[in-house]
């Protein structure tokens, strides 16, 4: 097995899939918190690299605060990256964009937000919300605009569209709101949608509806998703590949079934054992209960998971291991697996 570092990996992947929609490489994002004199740096994302193919869904799973949202927001250009490059359709996204470039970028990359109650402006009607992107990007005018809005709403199962077009968010149920959120993202015909926990605030019975809608759109419109969730089962349901994050690092990446069935990283293992899975027997396995939330302003040297890892060895605490391909298409950031 070849030990490749992340740069090599990216080169490798790029060759393997010329159809990549998104290539992220070495992405790092730091926040400065505090004011005057007591500034600290939070490294929310460290050396994150990932390639997304057309019509592919990659799920990003990790514990709270591990940096998932930040990844999506940096890619979606809500935050400027501290380091690293992002390519869309093979073209590098410049660090500074003028309005035209930015609009072009936004046409390709859209987002769906976690909280359907907060992501719609309470004062704007559904019709307004959907029509804005169309107008901004000059995709439709006048009657055409109305027709397009209707079409998009119906596409998202908000039927009859005329009923919904004038509604305000507070008149909609949670599931309907999230559909409006999806419709808004869909309006400009994007190639990539960054979905940040789009189902976690929804009622259980409705979650599947939304996931199914997203899957349908993927197939029909040729959209790729970066699907962020903390629900491993949901990730398994949605995604072709799963990426696991821990304390700002991508620690495992591989095809869904591989990651679920044969997890490589001890953290993935832990996640799996903690997730409810009645289908594999009603008595859950015991998990270790000692844990500490990693402090992103002050990570210990070495593998960030080492303090919690049952398998940790002294060498784990020396350097952060690289993300290496251990099996075909299955990467992990764990030294224990890097040794042959």
């Amino acid at each position: 097995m070849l030990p490749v570092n992340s740069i090599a990996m990216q080169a490798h992947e790029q060759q393997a899939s010329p159809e990549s929609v998104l290539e992220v490489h070495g992405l790092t994002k730091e926040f400065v918190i505090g004011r005057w004199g007591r500034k600290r740096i939070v490294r929310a994302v460290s050396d994150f690299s990932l390639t997304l193919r057309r019509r592919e869904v990659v799920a990003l799973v990790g514990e709270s605060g591990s940096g998932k949202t930040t990844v999506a927001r940096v890619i979606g250009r809500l935050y400027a990256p501290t380091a690293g490059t992002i390519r869309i359709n093979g073209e590098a996204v410049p660090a500074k964009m003028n309005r035209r470039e930015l609009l072009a970028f936004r046409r390709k990359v859209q987002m769906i937000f976690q909280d359907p109650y907060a992501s719609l402006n309470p004062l704007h009607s559904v019709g307004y919300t959907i029509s804005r992107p169309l107008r901004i990007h000059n995709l439709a005018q006048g009657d055409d605009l109305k027709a397009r809005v209707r079409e998009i709403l119906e596409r998202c199962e908000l039927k009859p569209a005329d009923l919904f077009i004038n509604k305000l968010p507070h008149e909609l149920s949670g599931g309907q709101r999230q559909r409006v959120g999806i419709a808004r993202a869909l309006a400009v015909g994007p190639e990539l949608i960054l979905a940040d926990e789009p189902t976690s605030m929804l009622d259980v019975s409705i979650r599947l509806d939304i996931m199914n809608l997203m899957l349908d759109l993927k197939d029909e419109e040729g959209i790729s998703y970066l699907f962020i969730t903390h629900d491993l089962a949901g990730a398994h349901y949605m995604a072709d590949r799963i990426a696991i994050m821990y304390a700002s690092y991508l620690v495992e990446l591989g095809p869904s079934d591989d990651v679920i069935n044969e997890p490589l990283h001890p953290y993935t293992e832990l996640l799996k054992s903690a997730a409810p899975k009645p289908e594999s027997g009603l008595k859950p396995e015991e998990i270790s209960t000692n844990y500490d939330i990693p402090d992103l302003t002050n990570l210990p040297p070495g593998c960030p998971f080492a303090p919690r890892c049952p398998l940790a060895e002294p060498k784990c605490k020396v350097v952060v291991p690289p993300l290496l391909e251990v099996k075909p298409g299955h990467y992990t950031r764990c030294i224990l697996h890097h040794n042959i």
Partner: protein
Amino acid sequence: MRYFVRRIGFLLFTAWAALTINFILPHMMPGNPAQVMLAKFQGRLSPQALSALTEAFGLNMDKSLFMQYIDYWKRIFTGDFGISLTYYPSRVIDVLAESVPWTIGLVGCATIIAFTLGTLLGIFSAWRRNSALADALVPVALFFNSIPYFWLSLLFLYLFAYYLGWFPLAGGYNIYTMATGFALLPSIIHHGVLPLSTIVITALGGWMLTMRNNMISVRADDYVAFAHAKGLPDREIKYRYAARNAILPSITGFSMSLGFVIGGSLLTEVVFSYPGLGYILYQAVTSLDYPLMQAIFLFISLGVLIANFFTDMIYALLDPRVRDGGV
């Protein structure tokens, strides 16, 4: 500790800004104090006195504004604010020393009483929400809060002091008594009741409403519901849990409002001929008494700032989150 340092930083900056404004403002005023003084005598002084006054006031030296600014700072640091022109040749410090204690006493007591009473009423009206009495308190408080200070003072003066004769008409204590020190206290209280009560009445409502709103918000907070669930007695929840948290925003408001209260009390003082800063400021302004004006404004600003600083410290004492630099 960090919090402390930051507050100090803010204190210093604000003090600098206040002091600089304080320096600049009088210099933008037209006229010359000697002229003003002369004119005040309405012909009883000879016009030649102008040069005597100019000399006496030390106005005849030409200095650049910047140099004056530097001097001004020197004076602040040495605590020497120079000589007052209206009370020439008294030192500004002495003039202030006579009046400042009165204002501090009046405003301090009034604010503390208004704050305590208002806060208690606020707690009551929030806790007993939907009862007729508690709800009726709201419009009443709003009304009192909208009354002009000085107008209420006048009404009280005429009603309680002049027509009913329950309280003295003017001054801070009985000038004919030979008592000094603590023996003077009853007289001071007797003279203070009216000015104090007008300030209390007009300020009370604000505190009550703030506290009421905070209290209502806090009541819906989970820890209050949890305290109920824990089976704590109602009183304990009301004070130790709800009020304890609800008072925090009031405290911020408290420090911010001191400026208002002092401002308002100036008018009250004038109406009751109370020996505080109010009239002195008015007089200093109208007679272009720069040194006095500057010192008063400086004093009020610093007073407010320091009070601010202390309330901030109290806030930090009461709210551990602030102390740890969160929020």
